[in-house]
């Protein structure tokens, strides 16, 4: 424990993480300011989901430190970690709704697990959360009856059920049509500002993400290759950043997963 940094909610210091021989993160440093929307972008398979799991303490890095609200994730007890997670909301890439519960019970799940609120109050809260994602009409549906985009929004309602201090979004925009995208983007913004949250969005949708993020990190090949406000990044002359923002196929960011020489594989 150290005094909580008043400006940075999450700090990642000199983090290294390996999957087998491959370095997913190679000495990266990042800090996520309080009260802002920070986006982390990078090509598919660079480890964006892995980064969220590191922040949530589901995996512990080989080297380096992850601090959340003044707590060193790697050194927390089981209990301490669970206390911290009650203040974190995470939106999984797949939604990860509990398939044996309907929409209502899914959103009520964290409330029932962590509070002794009376049923009437839980009902009000659940309806409020569902209303904010536009799915109050879907309370009685089972997860199997939802589309992918709807399931993601129900999962968002569940993630904000306990009024967390930080919300981690894993690819919130995939599977959303333009209308619900607009609604979702405004929702992320208004949740962030009204509840004084800190939001972290992990995404590879450049346009959409740049529209709502206050600060951006671009990671590729295990390193942070660019950071700044969206305007700064568009001005940047780093070839990495330009390639990623403009979606050019040629440039330093590889499209291919590391592989032996193509010609060698063919013969």
């Amino acid at each position: 424990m150290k005094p909580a940094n008043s400006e940075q909610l999450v700090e990642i210091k000199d983090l290294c993480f390996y999957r087998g021989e491959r370095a997913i993160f190679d000495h990266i440093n990042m800090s996520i300011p309080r009260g802002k929307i920070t986006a982390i972008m990078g090509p598919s398979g660079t480890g964006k989901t892995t980064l969220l799991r590191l922040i949530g303490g589901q995996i512990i890095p080989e080297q380096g430190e992850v601090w959340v609200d003044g707590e060193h994730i790697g050194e927390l007890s089981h209990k301490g970690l669970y206390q911290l997670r009650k203040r974190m909301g995470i939106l999984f890439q797949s939604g990860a709704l509990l398939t044996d519960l309907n929409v209502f019970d899914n959103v009520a799940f964290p409330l029932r697990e962590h509070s002794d609120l009376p049923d009437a109050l839980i009902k009000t809260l659940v309806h409020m959360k569902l209303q904010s994602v536009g799915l109050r009409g879907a309370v009685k549906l089972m997860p199997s009856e939802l589309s992918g985009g709807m399931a993601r929004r129900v999962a968002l309602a569940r993630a904000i059920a306990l009024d967390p201090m930080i919300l981690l979004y894993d690819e919130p925009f995939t599977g959303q049509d333009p209308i619900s995208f607009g609604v979702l983007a405004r929702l992320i913004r208004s949740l962030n500002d009204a509840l004084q949250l800190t939001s972290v969005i992990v995404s590879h949708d450049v346009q959409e993400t740049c529209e709502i993020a206050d600060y951006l990190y671009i990671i590729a090949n295990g390193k942070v290759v660019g950071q700044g406000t969206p305007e700064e990044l568009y001005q940047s002359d780093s070839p990495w950043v330009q390639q990623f923002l403009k979606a050019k196929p040629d440039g330093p960011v590889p499209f291919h997963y590391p592989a032996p020489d193509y010609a060698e594989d063919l013969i």
Partner: protein
Amino acid sequence: MFGFFQRQGQAVFATFARLGRASFFLWHSLIGIFSLIKRPLLLIQQLHYVGVRSLSIILVSGLFVGMVLGLQGYTILVNFGVTESLGVMVSLTLVRELGPVLTAILFAGRAGSALAAEIGLMKSTEQLSAMEMMAVNPLHRIIAPRLLAGIISVPLLTLIFNAVGFLGGHVVVVSLLGVDVGSYWGTADSVDFYNDVMNGIIKSMVFGFVVTWIAVFEGYDTAPTAEGVSRATTRTVVNGALATLGLDFILTALMFS
């Protein structure tokens, strides 16, 4: 040559690692059982899924096993003119061996495979992960009620299996073959018989515990893919049946020697 030994070594190592994980898993799930005191509903729900839903297969199997025992017993004992011992034969066979063993194996096939598939799917669709991130321990919330439900259900199902089996024997022996009712039913009052009943219950408690443990662990430890889930269900049934038979030998040797 070296490769061979290396592979064997790795296999042994992997087995021990798995045993370690299984023990750790069991320990934390057992701790989770205490938290069920505050939430009996979770347990009752699982008792329904795991226990009540296995009833039909237990009833039908028990009935037929009892009938076959009666019939087979009759064809043997009638040669010696001691058909009045049929009741003893049927009840002892059921209570000592067939009841606990068959119930456990049927349970592994009916409820164990369902548990492994359910938990494996929850893992592969990240539901267990999501629960952890909501600060809910899946070992307490998901595993503990299922484990306890299995531990409670199997001995009860065994008792039902035995009772129905004895009735099945009655149908064949008394109703069809005309053996005297009194001699068929008049066996239950010896001291030994109550010992046997107790031993049978102990057996079924051990089997229920082990089979359910295997099922929930296989589900929890599966690779999060479709193939992983199918392997977990197969392993639950195969390992559950083998563990039951192996333990049955050990327990029988301890109890009746």
